[in-house]
């Protein structure tokens, strides 16, 4: 499972980076979203994957029984997903506005502010 | 969209969905739910209403500007952390009051509920502000 996840994360990072480096703005945004997904999966995997062990305290017990899935990374990912969602929404609106004002989707055309 | 069926059903659905969103918000403390999800449900209901009728009707129904609703929620959530500091504890420390009903049942009311309600309002406010603005832009 770990190997599979590692491969998946690698593929996500690679494709995200590839998309970011493309010239199209839409692909740039997709690439950024892929990068944040990759980071989220990375956090998820780093906390050791465990099957069928939800971090719930059973009836009548006072503490968690030993092998259990770590709930902290899941909380982190949840936060990161919500933030990522907001950022993606903003980015989508922004490229829409950029397209409206500049009339192009090509990042190479946006060079007037470079020095 | 101009559909008689949608308009008729939306009238019923709106109140049902709003009630459901409040239910989701209230059960959020120890069960799946909470202010965020409740707020999203309410926003979805309002969006449905905007689909069936139009954006102006929804704006009129909300009375306040969506962003003002968000501001109100933000202020509420912020204030919910203050009672905890009265006894010298840290910000956001929970304070609870127990309400005894005549039939012996207990209702626990606490500052986290106020916080959740604040989040609920923020999500409705921001969600409606974004969606309604986008819908208006397309209508132009």
């Amino acid at each position: 499972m770990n190997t599979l996840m590692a491969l998946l994360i690698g593929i996500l990072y690679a494709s995200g980076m590839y998309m970011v480096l493309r010239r199209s703005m839409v692909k740039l945004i997709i690439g950024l979203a892929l990068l944040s997904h990759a980071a989220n999966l990375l956090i998820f995997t780093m906390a050791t994957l465990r099957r069928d062990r939800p971090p719930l305290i059973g009836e009548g017990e006072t503490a968690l029984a030993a092998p259990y899935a770590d709930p902290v990374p899941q909380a982190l990912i949840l936060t990161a997903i919500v933030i990522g969602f907001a950022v993606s929404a903003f980015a989508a609106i922004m490229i829409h506005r950029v397209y409206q004002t500049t009339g192009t989707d090509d990042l190479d055309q946006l060079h007037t502010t470079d020095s | 969209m101009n559909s008689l069926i949608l308009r008729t059903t939306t009238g019923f659905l709106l109140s049902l969905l709003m009630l459901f969103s409040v239910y989701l918000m209230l059960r959020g403390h120890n069960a799946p739910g909470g202010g965020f999800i409740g707020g999203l449900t309410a926003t979805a209901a309002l969006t449905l209403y905007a689909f069936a009728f139009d954006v102006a009707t929804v704006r009129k129904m909300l009375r306040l500007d969506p962003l003002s609703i968000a501001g109100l929620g933000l202020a509420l959530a912020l204030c919910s952390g203050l009672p905890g500091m009265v006894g010298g504890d840290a910000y956001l420390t929970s304070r609870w009051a127990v309400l005894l009903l005549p039939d012996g049942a207990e209702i626990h009311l606490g500052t986290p509920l106020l916080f959740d309600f604040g989040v609920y309002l923020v999500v409705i406010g921001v969600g409606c502000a974004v969606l309604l603005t986008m819908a208006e832009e397309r209508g132009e």
Partner: protein
Amino acid sequence: MNLLLVAPILLPLLTAALCLLAWKSVRVQRWLGVAGSAALLASALALFAEVHVRGIAVSHAGEWAAPFGITLAADLLGALMVVLGGIVGLMVSVYSLGSIDEGRERFGFHPLVQILLMGVCGAFLTGDLFNLYVWFEVLLMASFVLTALGGERAQMEGAIKYVTLNLVSSAIFLAALGLLYGLTHSLNMADVSLRLARLNYPALENLLAVLFFIAFGIKAAVFPLFFWLPASYHTMPVSVSALFAGLLTKVGVYALIRVFTLVFRDDVEFVKELMLVVACLTMAVGVLGAVAQMEMRRILSFHIVSQIGYMIIGLALMTPLALAGTVFYLAHHIIVKTNLFLVSGAVARATGSFELKKSGGLYAAQPGLALLFLVPALSLAGIPPLSGFWGKYILVKAGLESGQVVLVVVALAVSVFTMISMMKIWSEAFWKPHPLGLTPAPVGLLNGPIAAMAAMTLLIGFGVEPVMQLAERSAQQLLDPQSYITAVLEARR
């Protein structure tokens, strides 16, 4: 204690909420913004006084003890940064009364500034790495909207570069957090520091340190990751770019200081060497970029980059004196750089252009403003006895004590080039007559914040002794992470 720590976060949030409630009335929002920033500054000063007298202040939100709860902690550096944030916030709020256009105000300029300030203060006060990420996102979201607000063509172009690079940096930060969590199973900085010291994986630690350096380096705009800054800062309204110039890159520098004094203490020699090289290149490349520019805010943007290099020097050397230099430099730089951007706005208002070729005649028309420009400009270049001189003097001395001759030579040469840039602005915008023969218009209210910040620069310059002592004390605190760790993990219940 609890109240003092949360106030710098809650006050801007409350102000933003009130601004949203008064969404329809721009005038109310304007004054709310000023009042909120003033309250923030007052609360920051109170926090600073508390930390100065009683040592590190800690508060655990909801009384959930560290390392599980949300920890807020302020040591001297953190409290000092919050005070500086308050100063910049107040100055920019007042300045924007006379400079920001009503269209932007209608679309939430004032609440966004407050949210940005909240994010900045949160980042300075948090004791938890994941919360640092969240505060970074809060301030980034506010800054994204402020960058794009207005929607002019140049602005949108600048915004897309700014947003992209910062999102990449956030993704790297998040990945680094994940790896760190996998290694230590904790995110509380104090706790992570203890756990890392017990582990013995130098290779992994170095890898993590480099990841954090890259993530914060992009935000702090160090070489070679600074390109977003000069491509975007000159496209925004002056109030916004002054706010960004004063605070945003400095949050990156602060995060670097925090992480490299507290979390990664040993075993990261590789990163220290990397930092030295990066500091040299940042200084040199930034200042050379500025020499080629003829637009006032572009020149200033490149100088931000070059000045960040100075701050990294102290961090890379990591001697008490060098670190004190970095703290001193941070304080000096935030005030001076914000002020220079404010001046650039006043110049553009008076002469009609940010382009140096198209402006002029300001000295004859407004000698007062010219004088007010000279204070921060000469301070930036490091002319004694202004604040910049002392900052550079301390860093150069620390460099010589550590035997880093190349570093010292670069730092001094960069100083000369900075002087050239400032003289260029002086002779073009102030000294030469206006190319179109216009008489520069008066700038009225804009002079207020500029004069106040120039006075602060003079105050730091002439009253250097207490400021220096403060910098030394905070450097000692930074170099003794044990006191921070004890304060956080064994806070009074």
